[in-house]
């Protein structure tokens, strides 16, 4: 698998700190929801830095969307969110990843649990599900520190309907019924499919979040083979 060059054709601010980059990638072979790409930046003296980002968009020809969360003092994310403009080339490798994926042929219920920027591959799954016209039952739990950190909130509500549960961990919006607190077993159980529905579970976010949620799901009786995880670094990429 070799490096390809895509061109930035669009840029959207998704939240206070997250940006969607829309890329046109000639020869893009298509991708599965949940897959990611490695993005490589090269300085003039040949120094390189590589990070991984999940593909946010449903398959759409040569169009690929990535979401980058800007990390204070990060090496790559401030460049991608702050310096990159429409027309710039971007080197990428992929799509890669065949385990943390959702395929439209899957008919069983789906539980998606996102921590912060971990929502990106799960949003891709929801978008792919909609694009494919799938009626697989879906529930999404999306844990963020505060409402200004939500990405694609309206779209996720539309795609998951009643199955969408945001969880605010630091600051809840005024009048929100649940006080700000970390995702716990009770909230998780109330917002996801129970084990006897045999859902495929996808958990994505920071390492600590993913491990805690995966443990809760397994304690609740879910088959570990049906719980797929992807751990992210702070800029929303797994690298």
């Amino acid at each position, binding site marked *: 698998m070799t*490096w390809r060059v895509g061109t930035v054709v669009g840029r959207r601010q998704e939240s206070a700190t997250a940006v969607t980059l829309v890329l046109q990638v000639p020869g893009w072979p298509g991708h599965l929801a949940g897959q990611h790409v490695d993005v490589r*930046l090269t*300085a*003039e*003296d040949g*120094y390189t830095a590589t990070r991984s980002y999940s593909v946010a968009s449903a398959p759409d020809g040569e169009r690929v969307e990535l979401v980058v969360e800007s990390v204070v003092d990060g090496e790559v994310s401030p460049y991608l969110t702050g310096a990159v403009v429409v027309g*710039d*080339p*971007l*080197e990428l490798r992929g799509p890669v990843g065949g385990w943390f994926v959702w395929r439209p042929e899957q008919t069983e219920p789906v539980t998606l649990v996102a921590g912060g920027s971990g929502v990106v591959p799960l949003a891709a799954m929801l978008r792919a599900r909609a694009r494919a016209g799938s009626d697989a039952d879906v529930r999404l739990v999306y844990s963020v520190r505060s409402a200004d950190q939500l990405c694609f909130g309206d779209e996720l509500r539309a795609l998951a309907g009643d199955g969408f549960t945001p969880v605010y961990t630091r600051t809840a919006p005024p009048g929100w019924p649940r006080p700000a607190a970390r995702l716990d077993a009770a909230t998780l159980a109330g917002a996801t499919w129970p084990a006897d529905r045999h859902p495929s579970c996808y958990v994505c976010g920071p390492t600590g979040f993913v491990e805690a949620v995966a443990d809760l799901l397994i304690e609740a009786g879910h088959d570990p083979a049906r719980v797929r995880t992807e751990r992210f670094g702070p800029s929303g990429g797994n690298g």
Partner: protein
Amino acid sequence: MAVISRGFSGRRRGGGEALPPGQYLTTDFPVLSAGPTPRVDLDRWELTLTSESGQRRDWSWGQLQALPAQDVTVDLHCVTRWSKLGTAWRGVCLDTLLDGVDTDAAYALVDCYGGYTTNLPLADLRGGRAWVAYGYDGAPLAPEHGGPARLLVPHLYLWKSAKWVHGITLRTSDSPGFWESVGYHNYGDPWREQRYWDA
């Protein structure tokens, strides 16, 4: 041919100091690790030096502390391109540990709590160029930086300054360590930019 990312330079900022090629100056102290931080009980900590004939010398924590120690200020150069200048360490010079050891060995293999290994010529451990360091910046060396004790060999890239040092084995043949066996340079001189085996 790689695409150049317009205006990208990574974290690097000009240091104005003479640095080895390709390095940049940092003021923080990045923590890089290949695994979980080992937690070693000082009551059970030991350092073992084994010669090629199988002769062993051990030091307990108390015995290490009782050896003559040096306070040194050295520059650190990590192969990931950061350099940190003027770092203050306290430790026992390897010349002290090797004093009186009967050996014809030319190489050393260093092993660590947690499983890390690195190799270097025995000559590079001698001549006041290497320490078993247990103090950093006036305080006991923190576990994330290799405490209770690490090897310190500042004239080579920092991956040779093995954290959580446990044993040093003197050998007549060289044995590549953890990173040396997967592409990193066997010697690792920052001034000759010896980062990788193939470049």
